[in-house]
């Protein structure tokens, strides 16, 4: 694919950067990153990247944030990328530095997040000798990167970096790794920058096949019970407005997947919530009864379909996706539309007519009214769902919310109602504990003017809590929520419901006092154990200009409902309050 990519970089800086000086590989790296418009890099130094860190010393233009763990760095880069739509960048040293990035690379890969991951390696002369801190990181990450480079000639660096950004942030997005041996980072050459990118084997389809679009339009006109399943692809391609127009014109109810939340305004009357394992009654029932299912930038993940053989049994399936390999991968697809979601929807919107869906919409509205998401509130105990609802109300649905993985993640997905895209950051595909807090730091760096709320479990909070240091030292004003149920709640829920109350290793006794933990880093810590305290603590957190951690001590045995257990179809929901 060939393209001109011009990042927005200040003209004076640009001409300074473009000077054809003879400089080291490390300086080439920094200049190239700046030319790509990178305004914030998360990283951690070590032996193999010492030349690179040396080049940063005294470089006023280059903004690097020292995290306290490489995992924190890559999740922060991920949160930055998901919330801004720009490429997130992180740097680590060879060996242990590089392997500490692996979870973060896999997290980004599963959720199609554009990252450029830079690792140092031992010198080219030492590669393959089991040298100190040598790890074959390109080999290790081959299955979890969109592409990777091991740079063997310093002259290749500017091209490789430019290609990496192009590949990461076009087509189906994803992480690209650049491994730079130490000698390459030291060698000097004349800096030459080319705007043109041309990667012969890379040609993502943008415009769809017109015939398929016509077939889709036709199918919609004939449909009586259509449903749209909108996923992360809507958000990533910036197609939220096109989706709204499509829904309004076609009169089709929309369910948004975990990654699709925010891709469609939750206040819209045709929004029916999230589908799948912890989806709404309405979304799951509608999917099982629809006659036309239009997947848009969604990949029919098994947490959405559950038992795939029984998924949407009456539906003809249409699928709009930028990745042709997703079409037909898990569900038989009658109408494939390969292309950029936004480009496809723009075409569809030119032609689409309403479906014959009025009776269906009436039916769907009845389900919504009769079986909304609900929980039993309490005046004596603090309920986690209440905490989320309270945060939603106080932030008017306008915050950027990041989560960790577990019950709190599902409650956040259910009870925070999103109005905007790029406001919901969660590890969906890999389900990575430890993601919630550092990703919020990245999101805040990318969105200094927005309120960023990070919702974590008491388990996952302990997987990257070291990054409290970054919040404190740079005064990054993330509001860190701990939904403290004293257990690995989601595991406990499975053990209660599926493993017959046999609770095995889910008790988090021995966890730190989270308020004191925050304070130990110089971050304000607050605690709430009932509704009154919860409201006051949240108010105080909102009124505090810097970072705050709020430990919400909630009821221990609360479960997430609806729930579909494995081996069932999505209409076989446990509602939780009907026993």
């Amino acid at each position, binding site marked *: 694919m060939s393209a001109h990519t011009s990042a927005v970089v200040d003209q004076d800086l640009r001409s300074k950067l473009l000077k054809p000086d003879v400089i080291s590989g490390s300086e080439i790296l920094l200049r190239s990153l700046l030319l790509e418009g990178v305004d914030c890099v998360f990283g951690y130094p070590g032996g193999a990247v010492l030349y690179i860190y040396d080049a940063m010393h005294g470089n006023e233009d280059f903004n690097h944030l020292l995290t306290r763990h490489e995992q924190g760095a890559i999740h922060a880069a991920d949160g930055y990328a998901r919330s801004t739509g720009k490429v997130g960048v992180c740097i680590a040293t060879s060996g242990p530095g590089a392997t500490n990035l692996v979870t973060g690379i896999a997290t980004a890969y599963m959720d199609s997040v554009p990252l450029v991951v830079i690792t140092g390696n031992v010198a080219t002369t030492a590669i393959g000798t089991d040298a100190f801190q040598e790890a074959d990181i*390109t*080999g290790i990450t*081959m*299955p979890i990167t*969109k*592409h990777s480079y*091991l740079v063997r000639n310093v002259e290749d660096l500017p091209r490789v970096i430019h290609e990496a950004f192009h*590949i990461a942030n076009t087509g*189906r997005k994803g992480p690209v790794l650049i491994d730079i041996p130490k000698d390459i980072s030291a060698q000097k050459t004349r800096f030459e920058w080319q705007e043109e990118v041309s*990667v*012969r*084997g*890379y040609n993502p389809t943008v415009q769809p096949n017109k015939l398929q679009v016509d077939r889709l339009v036709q199918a919609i006109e004939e449909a009586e019970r259509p449903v749209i399943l909108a996923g992360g692809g809507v958000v990533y391609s910036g197609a939220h407005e096109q989706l709204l127009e499509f829904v309004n014109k076609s009169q089709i109810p929309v369910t948004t997947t975990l990654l699709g939340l925010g891709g469609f305004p939750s206040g819209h009357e045709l929004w029916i919530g999230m589908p799948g394992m912890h989806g709404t009654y309405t979304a799951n029932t509608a999917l099982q009864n629809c006659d036309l299912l239009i997947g848009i930038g969604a990949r029919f993940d098994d947490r959405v379909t559950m038992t795939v053989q029984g998924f949407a049994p009456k539906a003809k399936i249409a699928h709009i996706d930028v*990745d*042709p*390999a997703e079409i*037909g*991968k898990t569900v038989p697809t009658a109408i494939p539309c390969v292309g950029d979601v936004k480009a496809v929807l723009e075409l569809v919107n030119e032609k689409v007519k309403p479906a014959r869906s009025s009776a269906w919409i009436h039916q769907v509205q009845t389900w919504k009214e009769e079986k909304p998401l609900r929980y039993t509130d309490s005046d004596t105990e603090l309920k986690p769902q209440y905490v989320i609802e309270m945060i939603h109300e106080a932030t008017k649905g306008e915050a950027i919310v990041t989560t960790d993985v577990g019950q709190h993640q599902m409650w956040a997905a259910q009870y925070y109602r999103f109005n905007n895209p790029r406001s919901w950051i969660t590890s969906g595909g890999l389900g990575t504990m430890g993601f919630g807090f550092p990703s919020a730091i990245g999101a805040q760096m990318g969105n200094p003017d927005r309120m960023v709320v990070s919702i974590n479990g008491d388990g996952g909070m302990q997987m990257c809590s070291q990054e409290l240091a970054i919040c404190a030292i740079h005064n990054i004003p993330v509001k860190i929520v701990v939904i403290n149920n004293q257990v690995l709640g989601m595991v406990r829920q499975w053990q209660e419901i599926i493993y017959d109350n046999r609770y095995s290793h889910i008790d988090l006794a021995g966890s730190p006092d989270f308020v004191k933990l925050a304070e130990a880093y110089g971050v304000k810590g607050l605690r709430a154990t009932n509704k009154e305290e919860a409201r006051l603590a949240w108010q105080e957190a909102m009124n505090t200009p810097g970072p705050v951690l709020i430990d919400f001590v909630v009821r221990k045995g609360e479960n997430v409902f609806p729930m579909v257990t494995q081996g069932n179809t999505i209409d076989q929901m446990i509602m939780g309050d009907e026993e």
Partner: protein
Amino acid sequence: MSTHRHTISVLVNNQPGVLQRVSGLFGRRGFNIESITVGESEERGLSRMVIVTTGSERTLEQISKQLYKLIDVIKVVDLSASPMVAREVALIKVNAEPSARPEILGVVETFRASVVDIGTSTMIVQAIGDTDKIDAMVELLKPYGIRELSRTGVTAMTRGLGKA
């Protein structure tokens, strides 16, 4: 779904690690590899891999689509979808006491194979042909005692103007 044998040609950038990318993809997605051959292609900087795999039509479609997602993959063609020539080379070291040699030479001749080495009690037979032919030849030589067998795997191309 019915399973078939497919021969696919994959044109790739001749980059370090490209074989690992392709074989790794087959491994982690559970696609089967019966044989894989790699060598130079007609264009400098590009190599051609020929992979023999078994699977349903749906698997084949996934293989092709997943291969295309690799940046170093330029082109994927299912050669078995049209008439093709497929060949492999086998070297067969067979026990060949002088008394058995005339019979073995009879087999060699029938298959239009050739003898490329003769030792005191062994011979190396070189056979070129499609997989079935080589399978048949190996079967016929088994009674004499095969000491070593080395096969290249299939390389192939479509007949006529068809290009992969």
